């Protein structure tokens, strides 16, 4: 008789996380279809109700640290103004535009094109709804809705860690490694958190298949649906946070296919539908931007007239580029620390978690290589680009390394 170990996530957390992320997505959807204002307000009230339910319901009393963490971030966000350049000029400005123009597509008029009018607007649309409910704009409260967007990703992660000590260590890592970018109105912290959650859900659903969905048949079915729905909503959220989120989701998708191909596992129709649903809102958004002549200002656009190929080869032949890459993409203290932790855990627990380590490393290494290619082709000065964004994009890797290091110590398992 073969003995297989099954893991039991906290299903209550998965369910509440699923409902919260559904409400966040519905807010975006209601803006996207230009629905009546009262529907947006009703949906937002529902979101607040769900968050309050998590904060005060006795069902979640084992997660007091997570509750406290959420409240602390919210207080920090509400006690500071938006001063960060990208947070102000991209995310909060788009939220302000949605609020004043009462239209998600206000950026399609291409006013100030350098302010990234082609970026997906899930997070700004939630800020705009809050501003609509409050009735006016200011420099403080609109960015606080980013903490609401963060919550589903955090709950998914904590539901899989189970043990409160591991939860606490994870919360500590989040603060140490991402801290400020979660509360300053930027979306990089959210992208990193959702990258981790999506890796986790997709690994659990389609790669490992070692989840205990419950003992009763009815529970099993329901829990499986909730985890699938949670995977769909966290996936959609990641793609609609930022273009980078879409790239990360695409990496997870390709890694999953690669992993299944190597291990000769079949790609079920359920999985195909799962991925189609995840990518659809982002593809629709991009098609609409292209239709309106709003293009992403990434590769190929910039201050010089040379092609991407010339730019990449030019930088590859320049010794200073290597020095800059070492300084910004390797000698980053958070990156090094998380890599040390991950390497140590990998060395200790590799045999028991071979699949998980392979999956995470495939995702992280693909993203890391892609970062070099993107920076090599970046249209602005390399040092300026790396200085302003390397630490932000590395957070996704840093959080993935630290989370999956803790995840290997999951101890609430049953053997069936």
């Amino acid at each position: 008789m073969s003995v297989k170990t099954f893991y039991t996530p906290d299903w209550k957390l998965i369910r509440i996380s699923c409902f919260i992320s559904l409400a966040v997505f519905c807010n975006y959807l209601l803006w996207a279809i230009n629905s009546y204002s009262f529907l947006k307000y009703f949906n937002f009230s529902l979101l607040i109700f769900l968050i309050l339910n998590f904060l005060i319901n006795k069902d979640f009393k084992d997660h007091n640290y997570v509750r406290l963490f959420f409240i602390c971030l919210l207080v920090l966000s509400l006690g500071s103004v938006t001063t960060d350049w990208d947070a102000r000029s991209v995310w909060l400005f788009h939220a302000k535009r949605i609020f004043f123009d009462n239209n998600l597509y206000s950026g399609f008029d291409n006013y100030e094109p350098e302010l990234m009018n082609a970026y997906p607007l899930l997070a700004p649309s939630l800020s705009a709804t809050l501003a609509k409910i409050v009735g006016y704009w200011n420099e403080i409260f609109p960015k606080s809705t980013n903490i609401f967007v963060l919550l589903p990703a955090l709950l998914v992660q904590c539901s899989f860690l189970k043990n409160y000590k591991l939860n606490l260590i994870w919360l500590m890592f989040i603060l140490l490694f991402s801290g400020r970018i979660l509360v300053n109105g930027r979306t990089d912290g959210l992208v990193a958190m959702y990258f981790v959650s999506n890796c986790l859900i997709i690994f659990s659903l389609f790669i490992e298949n070692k989840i205990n969905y419950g003992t009763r048949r009815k529970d099993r079915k329901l829990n499986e649906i909730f985890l699938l729905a949670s995977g769909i909503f966290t996936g959609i959220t990641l793609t609609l946070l930022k273009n980078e989120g879409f790239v990360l989701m695409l990496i997870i998708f390709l890694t999953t296919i690669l992993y299944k191909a190597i291990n000769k596992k079949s790609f079920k129709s359920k999985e195909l539908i799962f991925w189609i649903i995840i990518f659809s809102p982002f593809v629709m958004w991009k098609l609409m931007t292209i239709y309106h002549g709003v293009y992403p200002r990434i590769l190929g656009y910039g201050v010089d007239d040379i092609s991407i190929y010339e730019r990449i080869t030019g930088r590859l032949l320049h010794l200073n580029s290597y020095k800059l890459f070492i300084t910004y993409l390797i000698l980053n203290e958070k990156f090094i620390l998380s890599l040390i932790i991950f390497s140590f855990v990998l060395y200790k627990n590799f045999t028991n978690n071979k699949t998980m380590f392979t999956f995470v490393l495939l995702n992280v290494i693909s993203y890391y290589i892609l970062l070099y290619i993107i920076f090599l082709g970046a249209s602005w000065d390399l040092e300026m680009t790396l200085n302003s964004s390397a630490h932000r994009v590395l957070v996704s890797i840093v959080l993935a390394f630290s989370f999956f290091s803790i995840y290997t110590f999951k101890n609430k398992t049953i053997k069936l």
Partner: protein
Amino acid sequence: MKTKSFYFLTIVLLVCALKLVQIGYKRIHFSTDLFLNSFKKNFGEEHAVSENVLEAKKLILQSQISNFNLSNELVVNAYFRQRIIELSYPIRLNRNSKFLIAKNSEVIKCKLKSESKKFKFYEC
């Protein structure tokens, strides 16, 4: 075992608390005044942008216009240009607008409509 657990909890909680304080006071300049007034209309502008930008915004608002232009000296100041675009929205920056904001020191051959300490507002 219980003592070990207690020490562990104390250390992790202490690290979290210190980090929260560091983020709050060193990185994002948390203020209880901002927190208590976080839902007040237009509150926090003076903390978010420089005095110059606020002064220029005041001139734009007083003039009750739908768009404005910036003088060549102001438009090359990336910080000023960016912040005035964000802060004055829904009033938009338009390079063809007849309403112009310029520094007091600049010589502009247009009709002066109003002025402040550092800026002048013209109709061209």
